[in-house]
């Protein structure tokens, strides 16, 4: 391989996760000389997607506790003790593409707008996340099979819902009106009063909502730390995001997922765009040392190469430790237990059509509460084989929970979900991977600038892609290019690319 020694760059981006890749995309037409490296020998960083074999290799590397270099720990793969007939259902390793970042993207997200205005969306396939469900255990009869209930997810659903009585519907509609206007003049006083209140008591006392309706709203909101009682300030904006996203790209769904492995696919498409624009890509290369100088930064790369750059950008763990921020990140860290599970059934009932003639959903959301510790909630993103992540006849579940017993609670939740489907025999888990991901709680937007060295915030690790990530991309892009805010990610068609209008419908 040719050496990078003594080369000079305008921008060196370290790490190929989504935050860095979006910056690479933003810089792809800037005329800047970009070197994009990753210490891993694969693309995607913390947002990578893996085949079955790659996932097993990854799990072996992250089986121990958290290190400076990684937010992942305690990774383990288990193939369940099942008879050979079941085992043989597991497809070839490359038939799977497991997403470390299966986050759903709301249709009004700024990310989708940026992908369209930068003309990268045509390289991607998006699919609908259709229905939201709750798995409900019978409080009075622990032996009864858990029930799967579709969560009403918009005004029409609320009207049609048979489980809510008229009074509950009226209260819910009143709350939905509040959600639409809480930041407007008429409601501001109320909002100031409510915003720090715990959700359950506030919704019960101030909005007269019954428990069932509160649980439904919490399922829609998917609050990040599921075992902590969220405040109205967390839940209300998220419910609003959900309600306002319904119908943007077609009737009956509010969110989408990228086909072939979640956000990994967006990161790769962004990197490809930067490569086409002249960006140089080198995998298996990390930064061992960075020295600031008058005109930029001198970097030492892993096999002893020295390069110069005006800007160095990466997420904190992709940059050489500078000591200043790593310490306070540790204090605010929260750990989320995650499981990826391959199910021996397509679980068709999780993916009903969203509307007549609309796209067939490839994603669903299931929220399950533990029967034994009712505080513990498990959020499950279900991806059908349409997502390209598993062979037909199967589906992939991405389950997350918080707390020290997270994995036990996930175990219980997935088992409840599989029993609630009503299939006989109850579907099996063919393969699963567990791990713990540590999140850096970013109270500010997480962007830190130390002269020419810029630390990007990491992607939030809960179930929903958050728009603030792209806002920090924009800030860094403006810093580097001096471009105006309005020009961010707005690209003309490339020369020589036949952009057929008919192709985009």
């Amino acid at each position: 391989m040719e050496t990078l020694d003594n080369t000079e760059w305008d921008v060196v981006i370290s790490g190929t996760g989504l935050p860095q890749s979006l910056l690479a995309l933003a810089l792809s037409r800037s005329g800047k000389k970009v070197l994009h490296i990753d210490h891993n020998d694969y693309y995607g960083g913390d947002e990578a997607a893996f085949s079955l074999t790659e996932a097993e290799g990854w799990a072996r590397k992250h089986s121990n506790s958290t290190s400076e270099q990684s937010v992942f720990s305690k990774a383990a793969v288990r193939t369940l003790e099942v008879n050979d007939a079941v085992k043989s259902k597991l497809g070839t390793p490359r038939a799977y593409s497991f997403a470390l970042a299966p986050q759903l993207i709301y249709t009004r997200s700024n990310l989708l707008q940026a992908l369209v205005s930068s003309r990268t969306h045509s390289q991607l396939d998006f699919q609908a996340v259709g229905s939201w469900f709750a798995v409900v255990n019978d409080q009075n009869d622990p032996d009864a099979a858990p029930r799967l209930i579709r969560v009403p997810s918009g005004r029409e659903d609320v009207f049609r819902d048979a489980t809510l009585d008229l009074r509950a519907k009226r209260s819910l509609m009143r709350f939905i009106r509040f959600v639409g206007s809480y930041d407007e003049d008429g409601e501001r006083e109320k909002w100031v009063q409510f915003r720090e209140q715990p959700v359950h008591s506030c919704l019960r006392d101030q909005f007269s909502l019954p428990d069932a309706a509160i649980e439904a709203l919490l399922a829609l909101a998917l609050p990040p730390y599921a075992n902590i009682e969220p405040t109205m300030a967390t839940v209300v904006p998220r419910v609003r995001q959900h309600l306002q996203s319904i119908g943007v790209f077609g009737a009956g769904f509010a969110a989408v997922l990228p086909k072939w492995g979640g956000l990994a696919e967006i990161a790769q498409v962004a990197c490809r765009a930067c490569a086409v624009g002249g960006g140089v890509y080198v995998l298996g290369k990390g930064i061992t040392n960075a020295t600031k100088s008058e005109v930029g930064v001198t970097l030492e790369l892993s096999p002893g190469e020295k390069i110069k750059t005006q800007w160095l950008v990466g997420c904190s763990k992709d940059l050489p430790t500078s000591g200043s921020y790593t310490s306070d990140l540790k204090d605010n860290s929260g750990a989320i237990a995650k499981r990826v599970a391959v199910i021996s059934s397509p679980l068709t009932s999780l993916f009903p059509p969203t509307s007549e003639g609309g796209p067939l959903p490839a994603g669903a959301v299931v929220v399950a509460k533990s029967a034994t510790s009712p505080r513990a909630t498990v959020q499950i993103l279900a991806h059908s084989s349409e997502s390209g992540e598993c062979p037909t006849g199967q589906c992939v579940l991405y389950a997350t929970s918080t707390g020290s017993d997270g994995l036990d609670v996930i175990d219980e939740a997935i088992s409840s979900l599989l029993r609630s489907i009503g299939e006989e025999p109850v579907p099996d888990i063919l393969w699963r991977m567990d791990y713990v991901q540590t999140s850096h709680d970013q109270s500010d937007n997480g962007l830190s600038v130390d002269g020419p060295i810029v630390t990007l915030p990491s992607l939030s690790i809960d179930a929903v892609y958050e728009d603030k990530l792209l806002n920090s991309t924009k800030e860094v892009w403006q810093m580097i290019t001096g471009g105006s805010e309005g020009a961010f990610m707005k690209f003309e068609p490339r020369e020589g690319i036949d952009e057929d209008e008919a192709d985009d419908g």
Partner: protein
Amino acid sequence: MTDSAAPAAPKPSSSVKLVLLGEAAVGKSSLVLRFVNNEFQPNKEPTIGAAFLTQKCQLPNRTIKFEIWDTAGQERFASLAPMYYRNAQAALVVYDVTKASSITKAKHWVAELQRQASPGIVIAFVGNKVDLCDDDAPEGEAAEGGEAEGEEDATVRKVSFKEAKAYAEEENLLFFETSAKTGHNVSEVFTAIANAIPETSLKTSRGAATGAGTQAAISAGQDGSKVNLNARGGDKPQEGCAC
């Protein structure tokens, strides 16, 4: 519009992602430029950066739109290819018939594709620069100067047709010898790839739940689960998505 009222019904059209692989200076970009623009630049500079081009290929019963990803200029870091062949439906692995080492590198690419790329990927194995060989140059003239490299002794064939073809057959690859300079066999390669892409990989396999009737299938385009990001507002009827 009903079926009977469509005299010039457009042929079904599908995109095929194709990645170009091979050693530096074997003529990858030249092959694509010949295919896309039907032009040839005799002393083409090595490609800087990476190129992305599209070109349509008309088959009797359908149109294939190739999205061509050229790793040109970055072979030396060996890092772009994995990003390019991810989810690619076709690969063009190119060597230079006048350079023995280039077929070794091409075989490495084939092995890597077979190990890492999508299981159903269609691979075309292509020996370029046959115009430099006296024996079978289509115009019967030995090239002078020639392509990016090789001035004097490059007129000698170093990789035999028989050897390469035997390898390609063994590995189940499409095989062609081409000349980007004269255009010999260039469009044939792309047509052969277009024909070899299985119909099933053009239409994403659909679950059993799509018994919803043809109307739904038509309005959702060829892929029943695809969300059209240009359909913002959702107020206009979805048209057949022809990507």
